[in-house]
């Protein structure tokens, strides 16, 4: 009953601790350390890591970069959205705005691209389905990740950060082709 009464010993801090508790604390601590080491380990040996590359930007500046890419590499159009096929290894851009991911990208399998992402207005969530890669996209920040699609097919970018009444209409596409 001493959980809600003052401890039975005045010097409770110097009473010995049971073996069972010490053992458990030791096991739990080791497990916490293993979990800590997994993160740096994955940075060195794992293949899925975010870069630390990001820049401050603003909507017009990022929009200009997207427009330049669309002008150079546009190969078609779907539902009024341009489809863009930039060369492998290049910088590719995708912007999120109410309520669209723009433009549609066509990438080659097993090639890497530097993907730049930013938002024109509010927070958006870049959720690549069905692969299930999820990133937070903020206005004013340009995030750069190197992505190397290892599956061919049609992939959808769902917005998974609430962005107003049209949030559930906000989709984008990435096509990965095998040559």
């Amino acid at each position: 009953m001493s959980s809600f009464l003052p401890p039975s010993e005045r010097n409770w801090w110097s009473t010995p601790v049971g073996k069972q508790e010490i053992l458990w604390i030791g096991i739990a601590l080791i497990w916490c350390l293993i979990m800590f080491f997994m993160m740096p380990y994955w940075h060195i040996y794992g293949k899925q890591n975010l870069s630390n590359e990001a820049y401050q930007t603003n909507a017009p500046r990022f929009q200009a970069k997207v427009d330049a890419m669309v002008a150079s590499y546009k190969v078609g159009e779907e539902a009024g959205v341009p489809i863009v096929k930039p060369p492998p290894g290049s910088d590719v851009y995708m912007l999120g705005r109410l309520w669209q991911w723009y433009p549609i990208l066509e990438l080659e399998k097993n090639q890497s691209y530097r993907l730049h992402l930013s938002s024109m207005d509010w927070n958006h969530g870049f959720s690549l389905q069905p692969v299930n890669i999820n990133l937070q996209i903020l206005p004013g920040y340009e995030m750069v990740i190197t992505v190397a699609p290892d599956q061919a097919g049609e992939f959808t970018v769902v917005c998974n950060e609430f962005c107003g009444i049209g949030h559930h209409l906000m989709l984008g596409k990435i096509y990965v082709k095998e040559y």
Partner: protein
Amino acid sequence: MAQFRVCPDSGFYFDKSAESLMKANAVAGAVSLLIAGILALGVILTRWQEVHLLPADVFYQVLTGHGINALIFWIIFFEMAILYFASSTLLRTRLAAPRWAWLGFALMIIGMVMNNVAVLQGNSSVMMTSYAPMQAAPHFYLGLILFAVGALIGCFVFLGTLVIARDDRTYEGSIPLVTFGALTACIIAIFTIASGAIILVPTFLWSIGYIGHIDAAMYRVIWWGMGHSSQQINVAAHVSVWYLIVGVLFNARPMSEKVSRSAFLLYILFLQLASAHHILVDPGISSEWKVFNTSYAMYLAVLASMIHGLTVPGSMEVAQRAKGYTKGMFEWLRKAPWGNPVFSGFFFSLIIFGFLGGITGVVMGTEQINLIIHNTIYVPAHFHATVAVGTTLTFMALTYLLIPVLFRRALFLPGVAKIQPYVFSAGMTLMILFMLGAGTLGVARRHWDMDFTGALLAFEYSGTAYTMMAVAGIGGVLGVLGGAMYLVVTVGSLLFGKKLDESAGLFQGFGVPLAPSAYNVEQPERLQMAPKLAVEQHGSAGFEAPGTFALALALLVCFVVYYFINWDYLSSVWPLS
């Protein structure tokens, strides 16, 4: 001069003004829970795609209201009651500055009403997180600010009460463990409210046009200093209540005061920066910072929770074994009072918080694994395990304990109360498990339409995802039913429950103390230290709680297996660097 009454059944002393404040805060909390529960039904029945009840605008509005009422108002009102109980009642002392406490309560009520009105008006459907630059109406933020100021006053009244108790020497030795845990919660609360002020005050000024720009990244970093830390208040508070419940039900004493208190101390030292795990996939934040803040900082707090996970049921096991339930590993648990909702509520909350809430929280708080989980419906599944079951169910169990003691009423419909924790836990577990599954399949959180009807481009989730969301919907409805049963029992007890004290009446239930004749003690006898054990228990003996240790190892095995399954899943997605 402060007046006290003593509860003849429990022996707890109540200071008149503290008692009224506890009642008022508990009732305000229950009202918030009622609002949250009704809104929850709207959320559940919309996300269950085959039902898809609400239109989009109402859904987002309802989801905003549900989050704020459940996560902020219900829990913090109830925690104020716990703070007053853990200080004034447990230490047998008068409450410091009751008028200030009432002012705090009034501000919290005004803030709660103001915020709910803003959401109800429809121009503040910004979700609980209200990420700038999306903007809500000014009174949305002002309501939250007033609520936080009120809560802050409550925290200082709690601290003042501790000081009075020490000066008046109302207790021998050190403060009890439960009060120590409440103090932990209070300290974390002060940090939380400071973070809240730092971000919400400028956001409020921005919403009325005095500030031109709120940086989106800064908002998220500081907002989560409040948003996540406020959940750590809950953890500290509900772990304290766990210790209280095992103390009251089983006469259990902590296995080691030193270990349990050190674990609480770890919460204060290391939980705060754990809010970093909300921004693991944000731009502009370095990996070193993320790894440091989620591992060094958070894992020492995880360690603390793992310690409580052993010592809370462990202390119960030791007490039960001392009573002769020594057969096998688990007789102590089998012979526990499973028909008493105080016990069943506490125990289910402990298990679900640890196995579902704890494990998923650490897994998704891992820097790289967050990539496959961030903002999917996995996230709400996690925090429903921690907050909606861990904290909320614990508070429900505590309510069943307090209705006779504090309100002097017998439980209304005890049969309903008896099964309530079972219904609530079963429903919530079902919902949580299937939301975790759907999140793994990529289903987005805070999303009105899995079908994307009307979108220019098309996308379809897998059939399994739909099935999972439907089962989660069924679980959610069952959970709401469990919540409704709780409210029927609680409100019914205040209105119709058998009076355990002649003067316990309807209005007494709503903040006014019992009849003056009940308060006949000027200053209670000094609280004595817990009796010493006849035999020295610690240190020498081997395993005093083998059953608990086996349960703890089971948790660890689940934890390890599930953790590496997620790394394996991560390794299968597109390479990123």
